[in-house]
């Protein structure tokens, strides 16, 4: 009983599916015919109507589909015939103009004479070959005549050669270094004087919890105090940093005081320690918006002419 039900179910399902497919095949065939007619080099509306009429005279959905599939190849032959009927044109002029254009673009190409030039120029050759065929009817005519004169074996060989050619081109393009694909390294620029800030490394714990950290003496000039200032930082940072003399800062009494601060010279070290640094801002330089002023209670040992701010990063 169960087997009978299962068989009936599958039979019903198969019947429904075949009906659906049979109903859809003519529509698919018409769509294919319209696609084929649209690719004809001329009289597209005429061929669409003619071939739709041919489909109407063809009995059966599958036969309609097969006939429409056959018509898909007609535009290729028609285009070749159309090109053969065209005047010979100025082949030498077209080729010369395209070669001149190719040389001009190659000269302006942003590729230096690196190994990647092979990839760049092979890509250019393919691009200009396609451009030449697209723009020059006389070249299209030559190719069409050559294509027609080729035997099936030659066509298959030429078509087969396109596959390794495309693969080689893809490999060659992927071989171009990223720096050669439009990403040019920017020249290293020094920060302008207007934006130059003096970064003073201060351990975060030294700011937030002064009793646990060693006192920070910004007025200390001697290099022998290096160890005392370096409290709270690791040894590598200490090695990568050097003392520099900051511009004199006038205090409230008008006397100039030279503050010696620890400024990382190495860019990498600076970025690594940015979150743990404070900025010593001169009165002319407004504080960046991403920085907040540290409450004065925690920096009571800092001279009054020095403001220490903590970065929010």
């Amino acid at each position, binding site marked *: 009983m169960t087997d009978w039900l299962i068989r009936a179910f599958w039979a019903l399902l198969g019947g429904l599916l075949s009906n659906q497919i049979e109903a859809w095949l003519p529509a698919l065939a018409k769509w294919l015919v319209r696609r084929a007619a649209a690719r004809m080099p001329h009289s597209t509306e005429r061929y669409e109507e003619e071939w739709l009429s041919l489909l109407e005279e063809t009995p059966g959905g599958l036969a309609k589909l097969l006939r429409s599939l056959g018509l898909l190849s007609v535009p290729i032959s028609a285009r070749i*015939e159309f090109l053969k009927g065209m005047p010979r044109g100025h082949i030498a002029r077209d080729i010369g103009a395209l070669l001149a254009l190719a040389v001009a673009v190659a000269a302006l190409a942003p590729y230096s004479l690196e190994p990647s030039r092979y990839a760049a120029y092979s890509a250019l050759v393919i691009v200009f070959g396609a451009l030449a065929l697209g723009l020059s009817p006389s070249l299209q005519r030559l190719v069409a005549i050559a294509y027609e004169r080729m035997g099936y074996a030659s066509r298959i060989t030429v078509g087969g050669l396109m596959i390794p050619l495309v693969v080689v081109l893809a490999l060659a393009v992927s071989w171009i270094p990223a720096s050669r694909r439009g990403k040019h390294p920017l020249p290293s620029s020094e920060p302008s004087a207007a934006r130059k800030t003096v970064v003073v490394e201060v351990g975060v714990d030294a700011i937030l919890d002064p009793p646990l950290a060693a006192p920070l003496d910004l007025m200390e000039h001697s290099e022998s105090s290096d160890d005392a200032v370096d409290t709270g930082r690791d040894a590598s940072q200490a090695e990568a940093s050097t003392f520099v003399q900051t511009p004199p800062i006038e205090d409230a009494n008008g006397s100039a005081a030279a503050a010696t601060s620890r400024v990382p010279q190495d860019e990498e070290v600076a970025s690594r320690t940015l979150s743990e640094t404070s900025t010593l801002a001169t009165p002319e330089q407004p504080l960046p918006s991403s920085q907040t002023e540290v409450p004065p209670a925690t920096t009571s040992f800092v001279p009054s002419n020095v403001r220490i701010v903590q970065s929010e990063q």
Partner: protein
Amino acid sequence: MTAEIRLNNRLRVLAKFLEHGSEELAGADLIRLTGLASGSLYPVLVALEQLGILESRWELDEPRDLRRPRRRLYKLTAAGELEARETAAALAPFARLAGLPTQS
């Protein structure tokens, strides 16, 4: 090999036109008469029409009266008929060698 096959297809179509005299033939008729597939027949029709050997026109009757889409009818032009007969005469020795009937 390709050129021979194409020549054969063209000759098959031309032979059917010569057989039917001045009668106009639609694509469906030619598919039935020549046995060519649509993908083989229509390139031949396009080429022969472009060469001026064939000419075509739409059916004069209205599709409503016909109750089907109108057909495109092909026939040999005067120059095409002359050329087709010359070609048939040139190929006649081959037809005789092959034991095929030839037009006198």
